[in-house]
């Protein structure tokens, strides 16, 4: 089997009395897509935020390869190779699409304390940025301001940014949210293409996407991972049907 890149043990997090991560364990491997599903408010986004370093867990460990990253901040984890997309699109709204991706390229290059050359004419940034945009189908929109892009395009931009980071781990928070049917199909195709090179954690409500992409599915209910296994086993698990899929088929 492929290597485990990201491993979570005994993760706990509470906001006051509300427990959002209740002793969660999880693994993500290179070449695999691990889907995280669960009803609204189950704590999926908060779990992802803990993996990305935005939210500090109350207890538990997060390992990246053989390194304990539990105490690292989000920027340090990103530099190690953990990239994320946001459920609510988070881009630099007043930059162009290309600028947004160029920043990701720049972050990887780790030479950003550069004060002289104009970044707008820096081929070392611009070429890879364009390539990433072309890959998600945003090539023609490269010079459009990010805030002027349509919602679906912004979701694709989020993905292009994550791709340009060339991460080892890709944490995706509902990349399909708000997309139309065709847009979703395109996104799924894209993610399949990317999958072999990364370890992917995918939060998604779209069961079609989960069925097509996920090698393993974990079901989170009220912060608790109630079941984990292949899509088929999960789909037929009575507890899951009761807690989550019940109203979905």
């Amino acid at each position, binding site marked *: 089997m492929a290597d485990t890149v990201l491993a979570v043990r005994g993760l706990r997090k509470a906001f006051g009395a509300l427990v959002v991560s209740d002793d969660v364990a999880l693994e993500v491997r290179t070449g695999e897509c691990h889907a995280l599903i669960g009803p609204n408010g189950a704590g999926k986004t908060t779990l992802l935020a803990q993996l990305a370093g935005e939210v500090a867990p109350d207890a538990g460990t997060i390992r990246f390869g053989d390194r304990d990253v539990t105490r690292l901040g989000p*920027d340090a984890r*990103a530099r190690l190779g953990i990239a994320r997309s946001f459920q609510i699109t988070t881009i630099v709204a007043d930059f162009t699409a290309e600028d947004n991706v160029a920043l990701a390229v720049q972050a990887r290059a780790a030479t950003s*304390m*550069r004060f002289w050359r*104009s970044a707008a004419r820096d081929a070392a940034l611009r070429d890879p940025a364009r390539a990433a945009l072309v890959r998600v189908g945003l090539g023609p929109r490269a010079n459009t301001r990010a805030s002027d892009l349509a919602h679906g395009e912004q979701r694709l931009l989020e993905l292009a940014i994550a791709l340009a980071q060339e991460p080892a781990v890709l944490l995706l928070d509902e990349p399909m949210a708000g997309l139309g049917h065709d847009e979703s199909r395109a996104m799924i195709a894209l993610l399949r293409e990317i999958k072999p090179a990364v370890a992917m954690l995918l939060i998604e409500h779209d069961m079609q996407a989960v069925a097509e992409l996920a090698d393993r599915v974990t079901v989170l209910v009220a912060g608790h991972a109630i079941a984990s296994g292949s899509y088929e086993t999960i789909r037929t698990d009575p507890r899951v049907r009761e807690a989550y899929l019940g109203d979905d088929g």
Partner: protein
Amino acid sequence: MTLALLIALPPLAAVLDQPFWVNTVTRILILALAAVSLDLIVGYGGLVSFGHAAYFAVGGYTIAVLAQHGIDAALIAWPAAVVAAAVLAAIVGTLSLRTTGIFFIMITLAFAQMVFFTLVAVKAWGGNDGLPLDARSVLPLVNLRDPNALYFVCLGLLLAFVALAAQLVESRFGMVLRGARSSERRMLALGFPTFRYKLVAFVVAGAGAGLAGALWAEYARFVSTDMASWTRSGEFLVMVILGGLGSLVGAIYGAAVLLGLESFLAGFTEHWMLLLGAILLVVVLFAKRGLYGWLAGANDG
């Protein structure tokens, strides 16, 4: 256009026998330097510092105190002023940049107040009375006692700083700084330690204000605690806003307009502050993009 006018000003003033023009514009150039440095962090970094006068004052007092001890070589005193202001900015920035929003505004104000009251308290530096300079510093080849020479030195340094700042905001560093202004979360998720970038910008801005303070000390041959007062910090912000946030050159117009308005209004009424306040209020409430945005028309981003 403006630049040609600025270069032609001293001979023009001489021909028209209006020598005070040179003085007035020198003053504008110096304050514009401080305003441009503030625009670098407010306009591009989103860091609303309400204590920029502190660096201005530290620059000025460095010159005056060095002169007091007999050091009048500009090539020593000016860099010393810049370094002193930069060091203060590094300390204040390190402590302040942990906070955001109004807390940042208030903590930068608090540090500036500390500088202000320290200057008031140090009797050796004149306390509330300020500290006069016997003569301007000495620069090789240039006689700063000549108002025109001082004028061109100020103009040159202002242009150099604008060029440096413009370069900075267009560079990779500037991309990160501007990105963090608009979405800090995204920049962190990309792996940028945003704190460091903001701190560097904060220090560069402090250094620019320090240089402006040094030039002010040379120009006025006098420094006082007024240089560090919170109203002075407020005026710098007003210049930046009048000129239009994040346009660097705009801040120069902002400084010119504020000083111009002040002397124009003061010319025909004793209560010019009331009018100035009213104008400022209208600009803030209704003309968001400032003078520069208005001058540059809709095509400026």
